[in-house]
């Protein structure tokens, strides 16, 4: 008898494709938030698969804080060219006018204005009623409770006590004008699943994930890459070339590198299996307090 086996990874893929199609079919104006990171790269591949042989029927959008790594922007351009999706880039002009940067305003203020507020502005500007994001539930404790369709009110706020129950694969797509959902097709993927999928599918990712000699300075236990001359150096601080890589990608002054020799996906996975710190601890913004992610989510951060 044929068993019709379906592996764990195939199940995750099928579930994500179902969600991506369901949103495209039942919302007026969806958009896929493209952060250029590895999870976004996987989500992008799943969107290609969902509508093959057709094109992706919604635009991708990158909320640019102007402090992203240069290599991320180069990679974004390359992907757009290779795959041919519609791409929107949004920069919060109010923030630009204020001269927003993480050094003078602090990491929290910078992230709030350029990322959180920028995202809200962009969603309002285009009138998107559904935004795909690449967040996973295993990333952080408070995300374990996030819905696949995460309902946001007119002010893009997330109320953990007022989320719709989600049963089977019957997602409730009803929103009033001005309200929206964030939808997380990768909710059930773990970091290991993401890497395995990248390897198996040969999905291109930003080279910053792989170890290389890069100029870094050490601050408060974090290795910060000197990606351009906007990073003010403290007295006595000189960038040193170190073989490092990044476990997550965000604004370069706010993203810590790790010393690493891993320059292939299997080596990254091997390093990850041996490593003793969880993924988001490389992000400077998360170490503020233990439940800070939850507060950011309430405000509309992904």
């Amino acid at each position: 008898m044929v068993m019709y086996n379906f592996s764990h990874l195939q199940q995750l893929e099928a579930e994500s494709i179902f969600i991506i199609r369901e949103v495209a079919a039942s919302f007026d104006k969806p958009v896929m938030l493209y952060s250029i990171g590895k999870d976004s790269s996987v989500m992008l591949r799943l969107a290609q698969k969902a509508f093959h042989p057709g094109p992706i029927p919604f635009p991708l959008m990158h909320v640019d804080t102007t402090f992203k790594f240069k290599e991320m922007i180069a990679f974004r351009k390359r992907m757009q060219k290779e795959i041919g999706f519609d791409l929107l880039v949004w920069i919060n002009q109010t923030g630009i006018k204020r001269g927003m940067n993480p050094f003078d305003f602090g990491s929290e203020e910078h992230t709030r204005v350029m990322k959180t507020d920028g995202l809200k502005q962009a969603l309002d500007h285009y009138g998107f009623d559904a935004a795909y994001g690449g967040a996973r539930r295993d990333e952080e404790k408070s995300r374990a409770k996030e819905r696949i369709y995460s309902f946001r009110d007119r002010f893009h706020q997330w109320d953990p006590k007022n989320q719709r129950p989600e049963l089977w694969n019957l997602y409730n797509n009803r929103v009033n004008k001005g309200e929206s959902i964030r939808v997380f097709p990768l909710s059930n993927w773990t970091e290991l699943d993401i890497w395995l999928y990248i390897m198996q599918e040969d999905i291109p990712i930003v080279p910053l994930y792989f170890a290389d000699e890069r100029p870094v300075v050490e601050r408060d236990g974090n290795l910060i890459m000197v990606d351009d001359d906007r990073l003010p150096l403290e007295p006595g601080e000189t960038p040193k070339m170190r073989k490092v890589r990044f476990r997550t990608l965000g604004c370069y002054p706010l993203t810590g590198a790790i010393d690493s020799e891993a320059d292939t996906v299997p080596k990254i996975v091997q390093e990850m299996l041996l490593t003793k710190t969880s993924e988001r601890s490389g992000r400077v913004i998360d170490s503020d307090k233990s439940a800070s992610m939850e507060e950011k989510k309430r405000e509309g951060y992904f």
Partner: protein
Amino acid sequence: MYNDSKNTMPTTEAEVIEYLKRHGEKDMLRFLTAGSVDDGKSTLIGRLLYDSKMIYEDQLAAVIEDSATHGTTNTDFDPALLTDGLKAEREQGITIDVAYRYFSTDKRNFIIADTPGHEQYTRNMATGGSTCDLAVILIDARHGILEQTRRHSFIASLLGIRHLAVCVNKMDLVDYSQEVFERIRSDYEGFAAKLEDVDLHFIPISALLGDNVVDPSENMPWFQGGTLLYYLETVPVATDRNLIDMRFPVQYVLRPDLNYRGYCGTVASGVLRKGDEIVALPSGARTRVAGITTFEGDVAEAYPPMAVTVTVEDEVDVSRGDMLIHPNNRPHVGQDFEALVVWMNDEPMKLNGSYLVKSTTNLVPAAITDLHYRFDINSLHRLDADTLNANEIGRVAISTHRKISFDPYQRNRSTGCIIIVDRNTNATVGAGMILDREKRAAQPVEATAEPKSEHIRREASTVSADERRALLKQKPTTLWLTGLSGSGKSTIAQDLERSLFDRGQACFILDGDNIRHGLNRDLGFSAGDRTENIRRVSEVAGLLNDAGLIVITSFISPYREDRAKAREIIGDERFVEVHIDTPIEVCESRDPKGLYKKARAGEITQFTGIDAPYEAPDAADLVLQTADTPVAESTRQIIAYLQDQGLLKA
């Protein structure tokens, strides 16, 4: 840390590649954990994650730090804090929502739906359980089975979760006693006999100390059944899928250009093959599968839960919400169905209110037209109800504005589930499991004073009541025996029937159990069903009296109002109410059918005198004390009464 402790870490690149492939090829088990507030659910999950090395050191450090402020245990760290995420719930010390956790061993990948045990959160358990193959039911060894244990088990079984891992937790607090474990197991088995189609597995554990969770317990050498993790790793679930009834709900119509039209969707059940003859529902249009497309290329067949794109040979009109099926295996197509519904909103259910129902990829306006009953989810009793409040479960009739295709949930989880959405607030207010109408028990017709149709008229007989009395030489009477189970009704009825017959009287017994085998086999023991039972019996007794017979009824008939109705139907002049007044202690000591014992053990419920009322008559025509009276004496008293009243010749 992603690895089982028994695994060795891959070191070379080739080993890592091999390791990754193995990880991807393992299958997946989704399970939920349910227990009462202090049963140790979060602790168990924390233990599974910790012992299977899923916890990163920085998370562990945060937990140890947190243990000082939030910890509820006296050990060095509280595993529960590994899983409790939201601030508010941590401050309350309880989990208030469904949280999903991920871990894997070298055998399987797991998704845990961590669902709350708190009283008002039935809905969250339904949510978490809807996608699960297995439920871990936690029982505190010190307390045994609580109401919430029954509730969680019942909801799990309603949701079609076939495998229940019943963990008797906190065994360390009962000295790892085998006797305690066996008693709880036996109690649970008694209760679970009422649940449909479940596979039970019992394990004694201590989540806090780790006994029998991941590692076998040294403290319970008497238990050889394997650890919880071993069970989770080995229980077969792939066979739970429905591979027979092909259902392909169309999700998205793909038209990239004029030459291509594809139907995107996920196979809900069954196997779809290239070349298959298919029917599109609800239109009924027939065609064949031209191809099954995926990003990787065309495939010959698709099965659940594959997400594919189907092209067909003919130009048929198919859109989102339609269902492709095989011509000889059809779902129900219609606008009316019944479902068990879990109500999830603080706003109570409104009969005929304005709702939407989502079923597969359809979202259609619908009304809930009837509420047949509500479950008391602790006792599983069916109760009469006007509405469903949040966290209540009931059986409803639903009418949709358009035809949809569906199957009974027990047969097909994917095409038998629905959610109910409030059209005004857009909130998801209910979740339902469609019932099989072929198998349903007929609902009792509501007894009305008047016939349902105004065109019904009584016909007169040419034989008068007097002529019948003269023929049979008796006055037709109904002797209505009422009393507790075991009071002696049936025994007296039989002795009386014999005596009357031997005296040349035409008589007949209507017995409760006999009637429930036939005429009233659709009725249970709820208050509503009992009333209907008595109404029907009264009508029959009245007819038999009309035919000239003496009738002896032997029914508990516990409600005064029902007996008053019986008197009204049969006619006051023909009705003799005989109260068989036996104290409950005497009835229980007799217990001829072993029913009191079962009722006391909770195996049968709504048992009169135990957990259902008996309203003794205020003014019975005759009261018989049977505790110290031989049956013949009771019979003699009844015959004497009939003779005194002129109902029986001396």
